[in-house]
């Protein structure tokens, strides 16, 4: 039994995918902690990667002065801790994303407000 309890004790996880309007994606921009943590949003896994770049990320991050300076060709992408090269027309699912996956991106040369990771 994976919990110390007086009787049998087993529950379904509270946050399974069918309870959300779409699977959850967490997005984090490394070295930019003006956004203090990764952000959560429901996003269909059929969403093409290009749409993530062009529509999702600007909504979340365009307030940061570094955002307009991003050279998208140089960005490094991570699924969880794993580096991958996205195909712009490919969907999130095709890149191995599922419910509650983390998408992180790193923008070499841009290290936050005055290089502070802020």
């Amino acid at each position, binding site marked *: 039994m994976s919990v110390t309890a*007086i009787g049998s004790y087993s529950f379904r996880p509270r946050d399974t995918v069918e309870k*959300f309007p779409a699977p959850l994606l967490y997005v984090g921009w*490394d070295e930019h902690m003006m956004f203090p943590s990764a952000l*959560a949003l429901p996003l269909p896994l059929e969403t093409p990667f290009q749409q993530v770049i062009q529509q999702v990320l600007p909504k979340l991050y365009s307030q940061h002065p570094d955002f307009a300076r991003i050279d998208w060709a140089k960005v490094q992408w991570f699924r969880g801790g794993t580096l991958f090269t996205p195909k712009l027309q490919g969907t999130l699912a095709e890149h191995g994303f599922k419910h509650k996956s983390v998408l992180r991106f790193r923008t070499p040369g841009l290290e936050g407000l005055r290089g502070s990771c802020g």
Partner: protein
Amino acid sequence: MDTRVKAKKLGLRERYAAMTRGLHWDTTYQPMDKVFPYDTYEGIKIHDWSKWEDPFRLTMDAYWKYQSEKEKKLYAVIDAFAQNNGQLGVTDARYINALKLFIQGVTPLEYYASRGFAHLGRHFRGDGVRVACQLQAVDELRHFQTETHAISNYNKFFNGMHNPSHWFDNMWYLSVPKSFFEDAYSAGPFEFLTAVSFSFEYVLTNLLFVPFMSGAAHNGDLSTVTFGFSAQSDESRHMTLGIESIKFMLEQDPDNVPIVQRWVDKWFWRGYRLLTLVAMMQDYMLPKRVMSWKEAWEMYAESSGEALFKDLARYGIRKPAGWDDACEGKNHISHQSWNAFYGFCGAAAFHTWAPSTSELDWLTQKYPESFKKYYRPRLEHYAAEEAAGRRYYNQGLPQLCQTCQIPMFFTEPGQPRWIAYRETEHEGETFHFCSDHCQTIFENEPDKFVQSWLPVHQIFQGNCFKPDANPADPAFNPASAVLDYYQLNQGQDNAEFKGSPDDQNFQRWGGGQDPQEAQL
């Protein structure tokens, strides 16, 4: 005629024995295991309950006497404070936000503690420990009441204090203290004692009370100071119970040691994470500062904690697994937390602000290793944006740790450039954590933590709208609907301090000066 002989009055010691141990009996109609079903399943072995040394020999009648004397003094001060408009005598209205955090996030824990100890006061089969827990249950209820009364005067004049119970059950950041305590009191009685009496009350409580109470003293808040004094003698009893209970478990059976060690690891870390809110309060919310979080950590955790765990080493107990990471975090957590609340305070029932230049200088001096390099630039950026009429608010909802439920803003130990990400799979589901230690807590009891009520996920699941909310309406604004569900008065309770009704009223009333003078 016989003269009636007056019975000799019992001494305190005998009376204590009669009122506690004398009232215990072993049941015969029903087996003891059925009457006390909770105190064996955790695996803690107790061979001789009579070895329990009562940490304080207080009988109920003596208890009433002490407490009523303290209450008389406390309520006299609270009355005088109200009559003299003491709320206008605090340094400035930003300070009030520390009180909001207290009434929202700390006071409800007193009530939870009362419930937890009342439960223990029934369910241990040892009479001595039952009595100690019953008395602590009454203490905690008293703290809940006196804190509510002490702060109620502020509630007449300032926003963000009118609905703490509803907020505690629903508001996103308050799920941090709520889940902490629900984890403790849904555990068995021995784990509860280790969590609350030992790890929190004994090891960490000074870090909660001293900053709030000396912060109150420094900032002219006499009513909170007096509450603090009134609670202090109770707190020292609670600390005694904490150390006694841990030693009792360890002395009873060597098999108890690894169980207790696992709880110490868990609850030190959970308590430390909870104190992140206090760290931020101390470094950012007190206009007149007492000491930095880092200094408080060094004084109350590092030095006394080292001594404590040296003392416990003879039982085979080592320092909590998260100890070194917690000590490393002293340079960072207050800044990381304030940064998160600065950005997310549109959805919080208290205000945040960018510190003034002199405050930034103070922080730079107190945190030579971290502040100038990592934290000052973003706070200066916020101030500049605000001056340009673009006060920064974060536009998204944060990823939360499955265990501590804090937004995942903590950085890797020793590497403040990188957010710490941890994840694990359990029965096909992915779970995320802020640290190795929160991950370990989950992995030890996944069936408990897969149920975490994570506020961000609840919002996306549509569980944080009022019943009459209509997401199909084109004018539906989900963020505003959630605040409505939180019963937060938008534009009053939340967002930036500068220009808030609290700020404007305090200035209009002439606050921050001598209250007598302000009335003239």
